[in-house]
């Protein structure tokens, strides 16, 4: 009982930032390739930092929410987020041991994979005949540029929470 309450308390930090990132995604940015997916970056951070709290299940659920928000076919974002998170867990040791620059470079590949998979799914369904590659390259690059900033912001927040709990 005590353990579950404790776990809930440690979960609120990641969950709050994830919901915040989702709301950031909900702003009326418009439909252009220049809009990055803030939720994907935040999910990537938490899966890397604390895979015991934020795992593939939360990635899947947030993906479904994102599908409803973008009125995409249900499951497209879910699959993309799950795959991205899996790649991060798979490469966890490399990512955590790398310098910030090296880590950002690996993350570029992760984001490229994520955006490629989302276009691939649309193409398989038959919605992607006219998709331009701008939607593969531009969001991936912007998300990669945002990665160090998000690390700074989110790890500050994490240390803040830890400080208050101890």
């Amino acid at each position, binding site marked *: 009982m005590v353990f579950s309450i404790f776990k809930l308390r440690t979960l609120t930090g990641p969950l709050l930032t994830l919901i915040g990132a989702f*709301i950031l995604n*909900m*702003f*009326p*940015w*418009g*439909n*252009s*390739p220049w*809009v990055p997916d803030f939720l994907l970056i935040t999910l990537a951070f938490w899966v890397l*930092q*604390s*895979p*015991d709290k934020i*795992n*593939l*299940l939360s*990635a*899947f659920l947030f*993906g*479904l*929410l994102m599908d*409803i*928000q*973008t*009125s*995409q*076919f*249900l*499951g*497209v974002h*879910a*699959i993309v987020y*799950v*795959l991205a998170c*899996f790649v991060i*867990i*798979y490469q*966890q*040791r490399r990512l*955590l041991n790398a310098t*910030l620059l090296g880590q950002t470079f690996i993350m570029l590949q992760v984001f490229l994979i994520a955006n490629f998979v*989302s*276009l691939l*799914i*649309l193409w398989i*369904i038959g*919605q*992607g*005949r*006219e*998709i*331009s590659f701008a*939607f593969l390259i531009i969001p991936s690059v912007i998300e990669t540029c945002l990665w160090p900033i998000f690390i700074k912001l989110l*790890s500050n927040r994490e*240390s803040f929470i830890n400080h208050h709990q101890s």
Partner: protein
Amino acid sequence: MFRSPPTLFNQGAPFLKLFFFLLLGSVIIFADYKLHATEKIRLVGNNLLFPIQQLLSQPGKLSDLSLDYFQTRSSLKQQLEEQSSQLDNLRLMANQAEVLESENSHLRKLLSLQQKSSVKSLAAEVIFSPLSPSSQRVIINRGSADGVKSGMPIASEAGIIGQIVRVFENSSEGALLEDRDFAIPVLVERNGLRSVLFGVGRGDPLELRYVNNLADLDVGDHLITSGIDGTYPAGIPVAIISKIDRSSENSGAVIACKPIAQLHHHRHLSILLYEPTTSAPSPTESEVVKNRLRQKKGS
């Protein structure tokens, strides 16, 4: 730089979980795409998200308001003059239209055609356009509670913008003319040639298909709705022909068109609450065919 050690250090990657979620995701996509079985989930989710979406679209509205507020006197005066002259013009046209309408209804009675239903419209506002690489959609702040139904046309004062494709309780989703596979039956205003206009995809010009290579078409011809399918009321401007390519490589002419209404720069639109009152009888059930069949049987 990270203080906490990785917790899943010797657990390895969760291949089984990945497989499970990929399978589940594929099943859900299939259920949505082929069986349309997930509309309930979408409805519930959308009801949850809608208040936030509407709240987040407020800053844009606020900036619009403040811009309106700080308009200068001279510009207001100029606008007023323009509008009053426009109003005079419109009044004149309205008088003419009244005469024409009465004449028209009289003629229709003579021809014993069914009266055309007048179209009511509902003012609406765009909340946002969802991010998607494959489609061009807008979310509008009117839904089934306001009487909006799937399939109703969306228009601005200039012409058709698109069509409602999905309805929620307080909001609805509209596809723009540019959306891929968007089709709208049109006729050329100048000579009444009928055809179908298709959306090709993001940013590309619309395409007029199923037209003879030698058809009488010119760059600059206006296309209006023909009203044949019963989804769109007849006579609303849709597009202008911008380029005609009659090269012999293609079996037919490739005709590019530009939508008349500005598709992406509208905050305020109107949904035409148009429900077709007339339905064409199927050819096998028409009186003429039945009579002929009877005659054949008799002979």
